């Protein structure tokens, strides 16, 4: 489960503090839950996603991710926790020197999965995102939509316990957007906790679920 208690986040360093981007955020999300994260640009959605992905640590409050209190964890234990979290970035963040296949395989390789299993699982993901024929292509040679599908495949291939998706359908046409949302929904039904940040209100209407709304770094509504 995920729990935030009065979490605050400020960029910069203690000696040169930057702007406050999240303030007094509190909510909880049970294991296997689904939550939309909405709000205007600059509201702090991506910062909150990065906090949940353990890329940033809060300056204030308490953050519990997958039942682990980050304030009580050693830094050396964080990589193992990160491997249980899948993240789809708004800007894809694929490795340009690896093929689509190797990008998708990376989380499994980091988890030391056997190569035979990796080959099967990655092939299945490539089929799901309809990129089987582009397995050996490098990201710079893929379209924006194709790169986004590779990024989604990479995030879900390891069957993470928590899936975070920041505008996962922003570069996809309607058909692909629906298909990828169905994939996220399927994972959620199998027990994965899912948080999806989006501007796309029509997508939220098509897949009704509880929603968090951020404005100016503050949580203004929690449907739960």
């Amino acid at each position: 489960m995920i729990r935030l208690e009065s979490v605050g986040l400020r960029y910069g360093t203690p000696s040169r503090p930057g702007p406050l981007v999240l303030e007094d955020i509190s909510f909880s999300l049970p294991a296997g839950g689904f939550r939309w994260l909405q709000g205007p640009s600059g509201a702090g959605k991506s910062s909150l996603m990065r906090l949940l992905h353990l890329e940033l640590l809060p300056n204030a409050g308490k953050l519990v991710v997958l039942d682990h209190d980050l304030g009580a964890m050693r830094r050396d234990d964080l990589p193992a926790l990160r491997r249980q979290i899948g993240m789809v970035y708004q800007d894809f963040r694929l490795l340009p020197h690896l093929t689509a296949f190797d990008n998708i395989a990376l989380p499994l390789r980091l988890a030391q999965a056997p190569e035979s299993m990796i080959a099967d699982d990655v092939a299945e993901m490539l089929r799901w995102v309809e990129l089987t024929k582009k397995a050996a292509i490098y990201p710079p040679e893929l379209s924006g939509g194709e790169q986004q599908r590779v990024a989604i495949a990479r995030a879900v291939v390891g069957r993470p316990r928590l899936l975070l998706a920041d505008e996962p359908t922003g570069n996809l046409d309607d058909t692909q957007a629906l298909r990828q949302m169905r994939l996220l929904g399927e994972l959620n039904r199998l027990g994965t906790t899912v948080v999806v940040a989006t501007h796309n209100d029509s997508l939220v209407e098509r897949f009704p679920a509880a929603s968090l709304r951020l404005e100016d770094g503050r949580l203004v509504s929690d449907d739960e």
Partner: protein
Amino acid sequence: MTNKRRDDLGLRRLLGQEMLPWLVAAMAFLAALSIGGALEAQAVARHWQAGAARSATVLVPNPDLPLPRQGDGPEMTRFDAVLRVLRPNINLAQVRPLAPEDVGRLLRPWLGADTDLRTMHLPGVIALRLEREGVDLDKISREVAAVAPGATAEGHNAWIARLLALANTLEACALAVLGLVTLVAVAVVVAATRAGLAARREAIDIVHGLGAPDSYIASRFARRIAASAGIGGLLGMLAALPVLFGLAVLSAPFLDGDGLGLPHTIADLPLLLAAVPALPVVTSLLSYFTAQSTVRRWLRSLP
């Protein structure tokens, strides 16, 4: 963790490391010369020390002056009398009188070629090879002075002490250069590693976010840097070999006296034979651990 040869971070094409093998080659070359210089100086110092400790010179002023005849004995010069005292001495392995021409030849560099040595009152010289180290030269001096007043026996300690000081200083300088070269090599590896980290910042962030531990990222950088440095070390060693060969030729006369025993001279330096071929391995290991520590320190800035 995963196939160690897999280039997940794209380090194989890292531009910042193209210069690394050449810079490390230069450092390895200098290190090889420093090691060679230090070992040669050490060998020469040891050789001089061993030779000097077992040699001495007896100087006999007015060597041709006859001594008063003793009873029925033959007429003897002061030089003959000193030789007669020295030859039965069991502490002396060799007593070798130097002919006046040899003494003149030794002194000519100081006195000049035009000087007529026959007009000079040169002392007689007897070279002694001692049976062992620590023979009492004062006692020998007293014995020769008893038959030829003014005659003295001298060891070469004062000269050898100066030569040893020179050789030891050269050795210390060579080791200091070796230390400095090692520090510069470490600095070069740190700079190359930091350049690599800056160039691959995004890839590191991605892999770190996917759950790669510090050891995974650090070992990939370290292996790549160590491979580049190892190639540099090999190039530096190969470049240094002919120079070290020349150094051995130059030092051969100081060790053997004939100037021809080149292989023998190198064979006298087993440390050199071990140290120089080890350079690629040492540079590789040094680079590996330097890069590991640099990357791990840098990664501490990430959560």
